[in-house]
């Protein structure tokens, strides 16, 4: 299914910097997401603005429970927690034990692990940015030129039909999605995280102000995390559909089996 065209030669697809940073990000984001949910559980309400509305209502999202039933409230619209959100395992908990690190309620440890991997994540992004700029990867593989924009509609049609192009260089949809992650989601994740720090707030007040206030930054941090989780799901589906062994070999060893007619396309 994954091979619509006869297989061609092995081509060099990913540099060492790309492969190493990819896996450090995968590991960091795994821990950041699950400790992030632990931190969220300490106060499972999101607000818009500078402060949390206790005496007024600026709630965006609330995950709570009524008796032993979880309740999710999004802009006042209510839904059940389905035994997962709000109430699970006989206890009131926004996200269940299997979705948090540590599995029990432990904000302090969640923060320790979260901030450790936050630093790993930030340093890795800096290393990648320098490496990708120097190697030309950033401009050559991630920037959309006129040619890519023109090919976008066809690329979407091909993806919908399950026809995947195997080439050394990324196609338009790959450029768009990786570009979105690397240039928008990753930096915004870091900025919204920094905007929650009271120390950074004092030195760089424009940061949280520009994001709509500290509680807005916290809400955006959560939304961006959901966006990254969404990217991860699509990413996994694409890897499976495009040929998991070939894709995995490329991101581990750098070598990728291209389609025969694509081999020359570098």
């Amino acid at each position, binding site marked *: 299914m994954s091979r619509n065209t006869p297989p061609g030669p092995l081509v060099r697809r990913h540099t060492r910097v790309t492969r190493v940073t990819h896996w450090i990000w995968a590991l960091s984001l795994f821990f950041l997401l699950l400790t992030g949910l632990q931190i969220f559980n300490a106060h499972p309400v999101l607000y818009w603005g500078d*402060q949390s509305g206790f005496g007024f209502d600026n709630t965006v999202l609330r995950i709570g429970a009524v008796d032993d039933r979880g309740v999710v409230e999004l802009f006042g619209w209510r839904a059940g927690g389905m035994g997962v959100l709000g109430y699970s395992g006989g206890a009131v908990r926004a996200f269940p034990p299997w979705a948090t690190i540590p599995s029990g309620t432990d904000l302090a440890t969640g923060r320790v*692990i979260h901030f450790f991997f936050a630093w790993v994540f930030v340093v890795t992004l800096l290393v990648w940015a320098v490496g990708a700029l120097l190697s030309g990867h950033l401009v050559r593989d991630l920037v959309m030129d006129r040619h890519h924009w023109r090919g976008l509609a066809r690329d979407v049609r091909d993806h919908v039909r399950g026809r995947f192009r195997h080439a050394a260089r990324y196609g338009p949809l790959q450029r768009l999605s990786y570009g979105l992650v690397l240039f928008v989601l990753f930096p915004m994740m870091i900025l919204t995280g920094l905007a929650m720090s009271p*120390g950074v707030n004092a030195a760089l007040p424009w940061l949280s102000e520009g994001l709509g206030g*500290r509680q807005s930054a916290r809400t955006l941090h959560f939304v961006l995390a959901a966006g990254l989780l969404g990217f991860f799901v699509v990413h996994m589906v694409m890897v499976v559909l495009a040929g998991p062994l070939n894709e995995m070999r490329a991101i581990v060893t750098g070598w990728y089996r291209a389609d025969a007619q694509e081999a020359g396309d570098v």
Partner: protein
Amino acid sequence: MSDHVVSRRRLLRTGLGTIAASTVAGCKVLDGLSAPDHRLRHFMERANDLTMAMQRGVLDRDALAQEFAPVDIRQPQRPNGVTDPQDADYVAHRNARFANYRLEVGGLVHRPLSLSLADLRQMPTRRQITRHDCVEGWSCIAEWAGVPLWHVLDRAMVHTSARYVLFHCFDTIERSLSGAIRYYETIDLVDARHPQTLLAWGMNGAPLPVPNGAPLRVRVERQLGYKMAKYVRAIELVDDFSGIGRGRGGYWEDRGYEWYAGI
């Protein structure tokens, strides 16, 4: 298909299986990190030293926390932690409307002080409308009135060997087998001498209410709420806090929270 490729594939499959299995089990394995003396936890905690070094070294260490307008005070200040201490000495003070309250300032100072609330109110007062950020994640804006801590420190003439300000509090936050544990906190002299660091006796235009730490609480505006000790009984200048409590510099720090709470 050569044996070489097969073995490679098998290796890859085994590897993926291992990763998947360890991911599922990972959450449980990582629960060990909750132990305060876990070596990996200690290593990860070092990241917070980096955070503090960056905030103190790269960002402006004298920066003032954001101040807000009166219109931003939209609700009462949400109290947290102990909100009604039952300690006998505190109850006695509260019943006397804190008329007999004295703030003791001692430790590594040349001139120990004993200050009444009236003394503190007569000292220079600073009012600031700031946002209180709780480690749990919520924020609340209120106006605080009090004497900047540096005035009190200067009056007590801090010894050059002092490095930290230790706040002793009235409130028992936990009863353990070894007895009652009263809240305590420490901050360093950089934050202690910051112009917005207050010994606050007023909130939102009224005397500090009991749930918010009456008669006196700390404001350290560039850190999280747990650094801002309530029900302050005494101030002690120290050069080291390793011998106090479990040695991490505060009640919550002793329970795994970061000593530097600027993040």
